[in-house]
């Protein structure tokens, strides 16, 4: 089972939920897909396993001796990563998505693709939990290729928990694709509710089963609860607004270690997720052995 923990709004507690779930589960792979600001390792540190894998994207390199400045490459590039000035090709690798089109359309065969580093993937092991983390190099815009490299480490068998980046665009989509269940973490504030609705739109677009965890739950604001009830979305857990939780977090301590009374909450949450994910799989028969409409390969 692959569980993704996501949210529209940042800072709602994705890492708290994913790391504590991993801790109560034990034997699980926890993958930090928030490659712009990976934080899982601050809470679950462990022994590094081997050297970090350097992840690169294939970007064009122009052989000037062969290039005749015809500009077929720059006309083709949808991302404006190539420009031709005075018959010379300028390559803006930070805009390149690595599609390989320029090398293919060049009539002179003057473009070859060379790897450009975008970040690293590191693996650690701590008390039964394998932590895989992607770390985007600063100044690199393109997170999805690195997220794909992190997800390539999802084990074939056993459970995996993915800590997603905030937002609703490409990095989130790259993370959520091919997962079995999405946990959306929110907080009971107007910002939390607004961004939850945006995140719900994304998981619905991706046709994934999901449920909500309300963090810093507050009896004075039930708008999130009302919205979930009306939209037919299961609220899987409510984590109370407890200053001790915030303080433990600030020091980099896991909630279930610092405040063991919260262990049952996360154990129940894990069991509920497993039950709902299994139910969703049964509810969706797969014709001729193919996956759902938006599943891949």
């Amino acid at each position: 089972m692959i569980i993704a923990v996501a949210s529209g709004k940042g800072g709602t507690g994705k890492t708290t939920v994913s790391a504590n779930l991993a801790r109560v589960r034990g034997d699980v792979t926890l993958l930090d897909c928030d490659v712009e600001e990976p934080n899982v390792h601050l809470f679950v540190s462990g022994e590094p396993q081997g050297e970090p894998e350097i992840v690169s994207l294939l970007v064009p390199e122009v052989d000037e001796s062969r290039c005749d400045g015809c500009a077929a490459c720059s006309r083709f590039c949808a991302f404006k990563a190539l420009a031709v000035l005075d018959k010379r090709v300028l390559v803006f690798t930070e805009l390149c998505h690595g599609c390989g089109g320029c090398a293919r359309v060049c009539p002179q065969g003057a473009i070859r693709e060379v790897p450009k580093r975008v970040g690293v993937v590191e693996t650690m092991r701590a008390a039964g939990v394998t932590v895989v983390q992607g770390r985007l190099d600063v100044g690199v815009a393109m997170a999805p290729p690195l997220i794909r490299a992190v997800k390539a480490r999802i084990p074939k068998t056993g459970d995996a928990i993915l800590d997603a980046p905030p937002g609703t665009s490409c990095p989130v989509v790259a993370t959520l694709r091919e997962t079995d269940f999405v946990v959306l973490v929110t907080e009971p504030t107007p910002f939390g509710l607004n961004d939850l609705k945006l995140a719900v739109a994304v998981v619905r677009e991706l046709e994934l089963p999901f449920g909500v965890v309300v963090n810093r739950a507050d009896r004075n604001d039930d708008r999130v609860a009302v919205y979930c009830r009306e939209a037919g979305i299961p609220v899987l857990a409510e984590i109370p607004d407890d200053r001790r939780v915030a303080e433990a977090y600030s020091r980099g301590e896991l909630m279930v270690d610092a405040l063991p009374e919260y262990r049952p909450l996360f154990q129940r949450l894990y069991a509920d997720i497993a039950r709902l994910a299994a139910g969703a799989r049964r509810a969706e028969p797969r014709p001729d052995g193919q996956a759902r409409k938006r599943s891949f390969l």
Partner: protein
Amino acid sequence: MSATIQECVIISGKGGTGKTSVTASFAALSAGRAVLADCDVDAADLHLVLTPKIVAKTDFRSGNEAVIRSEACTGCGTCAELCRFDAIHYVKRPFGKALYEVDPVACEGCGVCVRFCPAKAIDFPERLCGEWMLSETRCGPMIHACLAAAAENSGKLVATVRQEARRVAKERGLPLIITDGPPGIGCPVIASVTGADRVLVVTEPTVSGEHDLARVLQLARHFEVPTFVCVNKWDINPEMTERIEQAARKAGATVAGRIRYDRAVTVAQRAEQAVVETDAPSAEDVCAVWRQMGFE
């Protein structure tokens, strides 16, 4: 970049540290001298406080997306082979032949399949990625946007929002642009800070806040933007606040003040008010940050 218009971008690295609450307060403090821009196009929230009246909406079209015409597809598989984004898949139909289909969510719009399809069976229509709005608020004009769910090109939408904000500022002779930025350090953040005049990083005294600040300061230095740092909820961990401020100074940023932990911030948010428009205790802290950044 016009010398007379100053653009201040508020970012955070880590999400949920209070960027938007600080931005809303800055909007109120600017007293009608600023254009407001919400560049957190993934999960825009500034409108929840500034309650804009929308004056004009414009579709945001960016890039294209590949669509295979099933009647023309011969099922050769060239497209799936060439696609680097795993966006093209073989689909068996209950009736009729097996065909390839493009997953619109995974398609990055590069056009390689379109160009190299031997049967010329792939269309490449423009993609609607969201919309942006020009609005009026009690604090001044505002440009904000809404990215379609699971859409591409948030960086380009950010660039559009900033460009429109600058146009409105010029048109109305307003000297300031106050921009609410996205979290992270990737494409939409880079699109938000390049060419800005001042960046304020709002962080919090937690291990995550500290870690993410280090990366976002590196980014600001990379793009050579003068950077200020303020620690929000500083009193939940005073020692960490101290450490963060030292690290910020060491990285060449200016410490612009501390904002206390204040539950009245959520109360203000529920009342659709900026903190400085209420009698919340932390209002004076936010005013001090505003002054430290050389405004007023």
